[in-house]
Each structure stands twice: as structure tokens, then as C-alpha cells.
């Protein structure tokens, strides 16, 4: 059983989804639908399986639907149709309480914009998920302290987020997600806002942590280098459709179409980072 299964997921933004869904079933592309109905389509018939313990990268340019897709996994966004299974359970059937439990115990998330609370200290932010769950304050702070230590921020626990650099803030974000002690971590362009040096440091740190933790990590990026470096498998999205899914070497040696080919070529021209 896969950790996360996505089956034929469509996402149409706005209320009038029925006629648009009909168009999409007739193989209309995102651009055609937009031209004919004025409706923005996020995802078109996306199906994929994410296995336990892997780092699964979802890659694509902006507007390709990658951030939309990842928000379906914890239902921050609801699909227009399709199924999403986490540990074999259809999370779209979950009621409010089950959804809360899913977000508290099974899936945590790291955001591109960090999403830290400015009025709370680094330590309180790192403990946010635990405090939300109702863990006793002292226990929560103790656990958060350990995770801050592991991401190298032990000395900063009493600072506030606006006193930290971008890289440090994202470490807090990572500590918060790790402290939540969930099997699955979603990372939405988590390192994209950081400068290149810090970014590769963070990638290394993530890989080092993962080698001991074996979480299921869904990592969103628009950067092929990043995808190749950290991904066990990579899914490439274009205009809301899945164009290729494979291991890094599959992508490099057998690009599925011109779109993927261009990504790979562009990379080949650049000096290799790692």
C-alpha cells in the first residue's frame, strides 16, 4: 500500500465546475478551457502514488499546479473530482474532526513564506503543532527545544522570527514540522526563497535528517537541480497535467517530452552544483 495515492484528481477553480469538467474529459488543455470558459483549471487528471519513506519531488514551473496539488494532500484545497488516499483511507470522506486529526497527527507542512507567527518566540513557533494538539506546555517546549537543537538553532529559542535570517526562519519551519512527529511532511518550495549557498546547506541538512528519520517527504520545487539532488522519485507537472514520473536518472536519460527535455538541457549548460 502506498503512503499517499492520488487517483484522477481534477481541480477547477471557481464554482461552475460541471461544464468545465465535461470539457476536460474531452481532452481540452488548460489554455483551451481558459479561452472558452474563462475558468482557471488547476489540475487535470493527476494520478500518482507516493511510497512510505521516500522523498518524492513534484516539479514544474509556476502555474503548473504543483502547489495546488500538494495542498490536496491535507485538504487545504478540495479537489473538484478524484480520490486521495492516505494510508489507504479516502481523506475526502473525512469529517471536520477526522481532518483535524489528519493534520495534527499524520501530515505536517513547511511553507515557502515560512508561515511563522511573528508574536511568538522561535521556541513557541517550533512547538506550535504540539501546543495545537494539546500536548502539555512544558512537554511541548521540551520536544521543540530538541528539534531546534537538531536543526542548529538551540541558541535562538528566545528570539522572535523577525530577528532571524531567511535560512534560520526556514529551519524553525522545519523544526516545527518535525516536532509535529508526523509520518508525512509536505514541503512547498521550502527552500526557494533562500539564497543558493543557504539552499544547498538546507538540502544537505534535510538529507542528513531524512537518513535517520525515514519520513515520507513530498517536496515541491521549480528547480531541477534541487529535484535531482534530493528526490528519490520526481514527478513533473505542466499546465496541471503530469508529464513524467520517474527516478532522477529516468528524467535525465529519457525525458518524456520537449518540456522535460528543455529542463534537462538548461541544466546541462549550467555548471553543476552537486
Amino acid at each position, binding site marked *: 500500500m502506498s503512503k499517499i495515492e492520488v487517483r484522477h484528481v481534477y481541480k477547477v477553480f471557481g464554482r461552475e465546475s460541471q461544464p468545465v469538467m465535461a470539457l476536460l474529459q474531452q481532452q481540452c488543455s488548460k489554455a483551451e478551457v481558459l479561452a472558452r470558459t474563462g475558468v482557471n483549471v488547476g489540475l487535470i487528471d493527476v494520478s500518482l502514488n507516493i511510497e512510505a519513506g521516500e522523498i518524492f519531488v513534484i516539479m514544474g514551473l509556476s502555474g503548473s499546479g504543483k502547489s495546488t496539488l500538494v495542498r490536496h494532500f491535507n485538504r*487545504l484545497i478540495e479537489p473538484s473530482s478524484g480520490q486521495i488516499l492516505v494510508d489507504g483511507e479516502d481523506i475526502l470522506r473525512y469529517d471536520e474532526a477526522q481532518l483535524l486529526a489528519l493534520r*495534527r497527527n499524520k501530515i505536517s507542512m513547511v511553507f515557502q513564506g515560512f*508561515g511563522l*507567527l511573528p508574536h511568538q518566540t522561535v521556541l513557541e513557533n517550533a512547538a506550535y503543532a504540539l501546543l495545537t494538539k494539546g500536548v502539555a506546555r512544558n512537554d511541548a517546549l521540551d520536544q521543540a527545544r530538541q528539534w531546534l537543537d537538531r536543526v542548529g538553532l538551540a541558541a535562538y529559542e528566545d528570539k522572535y522570527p523577525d530577528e532571524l535570517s531567511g535560512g534560520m526562519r526556514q529551519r524553525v519551519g522545519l523544526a516545527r514540522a518535525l516536532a509535529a512527529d508526523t509520518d508525512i511532511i509536505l514541503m512547498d518550495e521550502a527552500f526557494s526563497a533562500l539564497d543558493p549557498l543557504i539552499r544547498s546547506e538546507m538540502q544537505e541538512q534535510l538529507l542528513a535528517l531524512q537518513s535517520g528519520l525515514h519520513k515520507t517527504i513530498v517536496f515541491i520545487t521549480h528547480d531541477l537541480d534541487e529535484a535531482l539532488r534530493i528526490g528519490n522519485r520526481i514527478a513533473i507537472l505542466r499546465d496541471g497535467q503530469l508529464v513524467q514520473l520517474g527516478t532522477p536518472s529516468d528524467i535525465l536519460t529519457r525525458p518524456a517530452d520537449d518540456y522535460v527535455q528543455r529542463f534537462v538541457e538548461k541544466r546541462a549548460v549550467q555548471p553543476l552544483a552537486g
Partner: protein
Amino acid sequence: MPDIFLQFSFADSINQFVSWLVREYGDLFHQLTAVLLSTLLVPLERALLALPPLLVLLIVAGLCYHGTRRKSVTALMVGGLYLIGCLGLWDKLMQTLALMVVATLLTMLIGVPLGIMMSRSQRLRWLLVPVLDVMQTLPTFVYLIPVLMLFGLGKVPAIFATIIYALPPLVRLTDLGIRQVDGDLLEAARSFGTTRWQLLFGVQLPLARPSIMAGINQSIMMALAMVVIASMIGSRGLGEDVLAGINNMDMGKGMQAGLAIVILAIVIDRISQAYGQDGRLKRTVRQKRKAGVSA
């Protein structure tokens, strides 16, 4: 000349409605008056009047210094209040203060929850915005009369009139403050399984605090502007002297009481603003100032 205006008036129906209200619910409103007076206003006023002025000045000094951390501001505020005492207006100052405190407390009790509800419901917003506009622009005397008929003369109708006048900015600024909270932050909080209440008390209200405090500050200022009108319907306090000054062409007396109201306004404004500021911002400013001195 041909008249294009249809002739009608709804004055009679309003009159009928008000007298019906007074007839049917007059007792209820008078009971409300009595309760408000005996449980809140009178004890507070008595307590304030019974306190030695020196103690009141010390309390104000403590509050002011705790809020602003500046000796000069504290000295100015206390000096201003002392001056009011010198003018022989201390007791009236305390009466006005009691009225302000009760009116502001009730305004907050109504305004903040209303603002929260408004930020959550677009429909309620459509409904409330015009009502708030009317509350703010309707001349005070128009609703003072029905309020008087319902509550009788005295402090309670003054408080209700003050609430009507002072409520809109607080509701608006609470609503605005909550709506302005960064959507990315709300999403991040929700992704960790935050309930609506946790979101409200843990994220939205703390981040909206500066805006809400600005609303409370505005409400207090507007309430102070009602002091003179409140005196016209029989509440005691500084407004009394202004009114007497106007009635007897005693400009000096009116001016003194007016000055006292202004000083009270400044004192309350500074203290409430000081508490509205972000505590951490204040700390950094203080550290910078210290660093500047030592450098």
C-alpha cells in the same frame, strides 16, 4: 407651480413606535437602568471619590510609567491631573472618569465580538456597515430623545448614547485588524490542525491587537467628546461646568472645565496607546535609546 414632490411623513409612525416601546418595555428598561447603576456605576464612582487624590495620582503615574517607560511623559500626565485638582474640579473629574470607564467597558464588550463576527461573515458585514455609518453620522440629539424616554434622565442614558456614538470605530477596526492578518499565516496555522477557536485566539486576535487597541483608543476619545452632551441629560461631571458656563455666559468657568476634559483625554489617550503598542517593539526602541546614550 407644479409640485414634483410626493407628500408623506413617517414622523407619526416613529412616534407611535417609540411610545409603544416605552409603554410595553419601559419597566424593563428602567430595571436595566437600576441594575447598571447599582452594580457598576455607583460603586465605581463612590470608590473613585473615596480614594485619596494622592493615591489616584500615584496609580496614574504607575500605569503611565509601566506603559510608556518614560519619566517625562509620566510627569506631564500627572502634572495635568494635578492641575485639574487645583482648579477645584477633582470630584467632577472622578465622576466623568467613572462614566468613561463604564461606557468604554460596555463598548468593548459589545464592539470586539461584533467586529470578530463581522470579519467572519460577509453577509453580516453588508448588514452592519450601513448601520455603523448611521450610528456615526446621526446627530446625537436625534437618538438622545428616545433613549431618554426609555431610560429616564441621568447617567444611564448618557452611557447608552455614548456607546452608540463610540461603538462604530471599534467594530470597524476590529474587523479590519482581523481581515488584515496574512492569509499565508492562516493557511500555515490551519495545516497543523488548528480549530477555529485556536485560530481566533492564537493567531487572529494577537495579530489584530494593534488595530483593536487603536479602535479602543478611538472609542475612548469619542466617548470623551460626549461628556458635555451627557451633562445636558443630567449626568454629573466635568460637562456640568461647561454647560453652566455656557448658560451663564461664564466663559472662564466653561473654559476651565473644557481644559480639564482635554487633559483627561490626553492622559487616557497616552496610556491606552502605550498599552496598544507591541511590547517587543517598545523594548527594542528602549534598547536603541540606551545604546544611543552610551555611545
